């Protein structure tokens, strides 16, 4: 362990519950029956990684991947079954931040309580108190019982303590989404500052963009194993690809959107199918970045519907609408009766590689909704053939035409 290494985890295995001697386990299995041997579920399997001083490591992965368990082991809340975990310095776990807050105590009293729970002396908390008070901006509420607080105020309380006490290692578990936007921004800034001061941060989040923004490196966990540890942007991309692939397969499996829960119809009009074609009219799975796309919508109506307005949106995997367009301004919109098809061409699709799903909304001339549908189809945007693998990964969605001066 060098001077610079703050956290060193080697071959860590973790299983929840009381470790029973093998004989006892066998006995138990015989008692319950052989089929239930899945009692031995490993939450973490052979985890190895290192974090340097002042580094911010993001931990991403699907639910149940073992992210929170990893933080708990690092916090010393729960012991590892095998392997070694070394953490240098004072650890401040931001796990279940509001746990331990007593509703009848005032904000100030709760800060002392939280501090004591996290292992800080009364003196240390007293020193930090002005900073905490200033940071959480509760004003007179700080001296009122916590039961009177709004949920946002409550969240600020726990967060304010964590951000303003002296710790060498911060373990952050899905808590940045607290408070209003201004407070969130403040938290970001504070995290940046802590980083500069040499505080090591482990940051668990489902918000990949947050991880990309805050962390240099990231760790991807899945099913208790480390899938990847690399620069945050690369890991984020890999994670997107993982979700993209899942989304694509899911949408493909549900080819008849009418049956799925993604659609809502007034009963008069249905979009039965959306097909993605290239400009040559061939049905395709993927489109090269910067090329055009042709969408074919199959519409079925129960009664004649005169000139409805159709809107189409492209949605990224993390639910951000990247672009949307409609035929609202078009004067000669078609009217529908029975089964019909609608065509829509986007001559160039200036999007960075990724998977984008298509949502469609149809309203009638008066503005009332006839149909909404999500994930009706997906467009997988891939790199153009002539482009090589980039060293610097893509960020954002838009593919801009850029001239570089020599």
């Amino acid at each position: 362990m060098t001077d610079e290494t703050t956290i060193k985890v080697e071959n860590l295995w973790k299983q929840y519950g009381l470790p029973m001697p093998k004989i006892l386990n066998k006995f138990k299995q015989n008692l319950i029956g052989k089929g239930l041997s899945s009692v031995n579920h490993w939450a973490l399997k052979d985890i190895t990684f290192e974090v340097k001083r002042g580094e911010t490591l993001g931990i991403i992965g699907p639910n149940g991947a073992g992210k929170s368990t990893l933080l708990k082991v690092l916090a010393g809340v729960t012991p590892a079954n095998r392997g070694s975990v070394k953490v240098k310095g004072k650890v401040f776990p931001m796990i279940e931040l509001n746990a331990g807050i007593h509703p009848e105590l005032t904000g100030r009293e709760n800060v002392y309580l939280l501090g004591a729970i996290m292992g800080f002396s009364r003196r240390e908390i007293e020193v930090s108190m002005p900073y905490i008070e200033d940071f959480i901006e509760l004003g007179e509420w700080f001296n009122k019982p916590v039961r009177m607080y709004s949920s946002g105020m409550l969240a600020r309380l726990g967060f304010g303590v964590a951000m303003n006490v002296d710790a060498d290692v911060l373990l952050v578990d899905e808590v940045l989404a607290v408070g209003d936007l201004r407070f969130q921004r403040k938290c970001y800034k504070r995290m940046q500052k802590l980083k500069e001061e040499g505080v090591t941060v482990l940051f668990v989040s489902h918000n990949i963009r947050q991880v990309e923004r805050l962390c240099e490196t990231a760790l991807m966990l899945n099913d208790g194993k480390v899938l990847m540890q690399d620069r945050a942007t690369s890991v984020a991309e890999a994670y997107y690809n993982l979700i993209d692939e899942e989304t694509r397969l899911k949408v493909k499996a549900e080819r008849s959107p009418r049956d799925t829960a993604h659609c809502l119809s007034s009963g008069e009009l249905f979009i039965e199918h959306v097909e993605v074609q290239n400009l040559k009219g061939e049905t395709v799975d993927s489109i090269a970045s910067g090329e055009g796309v042709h969408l074919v919508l199959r519409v079925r109506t129960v009664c004649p519907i005169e000139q409805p307005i159709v809107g189409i949106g492209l949605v990224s995997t993390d639910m951000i609408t990247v672009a949307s367009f409609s035929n609202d301004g078009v004067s000669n919109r078609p009217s529908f009766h029975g089964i019909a098809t609608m065509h829509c061409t986007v001559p160039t699709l200036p999007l960075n590689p990724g998977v984008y799903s298509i949502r469609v909304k149809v309203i009638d001339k008066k503005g009332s909704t006839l149909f909404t549908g999500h994930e009706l189809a997906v467009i997988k945007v891939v790199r153009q053939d002539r482009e090589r693998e980039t060293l610097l990964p893509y960020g954002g969605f838009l593919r801009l035409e850029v001239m570089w001066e020599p």
Partner: protein
Amino acid sequence: MNTINQFLTLSWALIYRDIATRYRRSVLGPFWTIAQPLLLMVVFTLLRGMITIPSEGVPYVIFSYSALVPWTFFTSSLNRCGPSILSNGSLIKKSNIPKEVFPFSAIVTSFFDFLMSSGILMGMMVYFKVQVNVTLLWLPVLILITGILAFGIGMFVASIGCFKRDIIIATPFLMQLWLFATPVIYPTTSVPDRWIWLYKINPMVGIIEGFRSVLVKGQSPSPELLVYSIALTVFFLIVSWPLFRWLSRYFADVL
């Protein structure tokens, strides 16, 4: 040293939380703290109007109350210790803290209640002109033994109860039975001779008799009974503390 400091800081924070918040929104407030031994005393005094209970020549009110106060300290300690791990589960899952603070602060919290009831007891002793002497110096020893005994048993209940709740649910019932197996509302002399050997297995016999002889009779506690109680207290402590230590590492896994 640092650990002890942290332990005390955290204990104090928990005790403050429990005491400060307990009656914050009640009308009678601290009265509830002294209510239990007081009401029990009233009940048994009324009961004594119907059946004969000897009280060794002192007013029954003093006789029973002087034992009910330390007894309540013991039972409320245990009743608080039992669920102390479960009810602080969120804290245990959040931070690595020495888990002994929870049963420990449960006992100190009960000790504060005990002090309040002791005030009432003192008033009553003055009213009934009970003579006391230098044997009162035994009191801190007796209180300490009571506390440590409760701590020993409490750690056992709390740690086992964390995995299987039954023992926590059973504790209040067992404490009620235990009351009748202890010379609180009657003197040890009322126990038939042929059962006395069985009766004296109960470590609280020596402790409660000790309290009473010091407070009411002005005599030192019976050394034979007291030594036995101390021995059993030490025994409980050396059995349940290591057990608690070991199990406490896994509390966060099952909470």
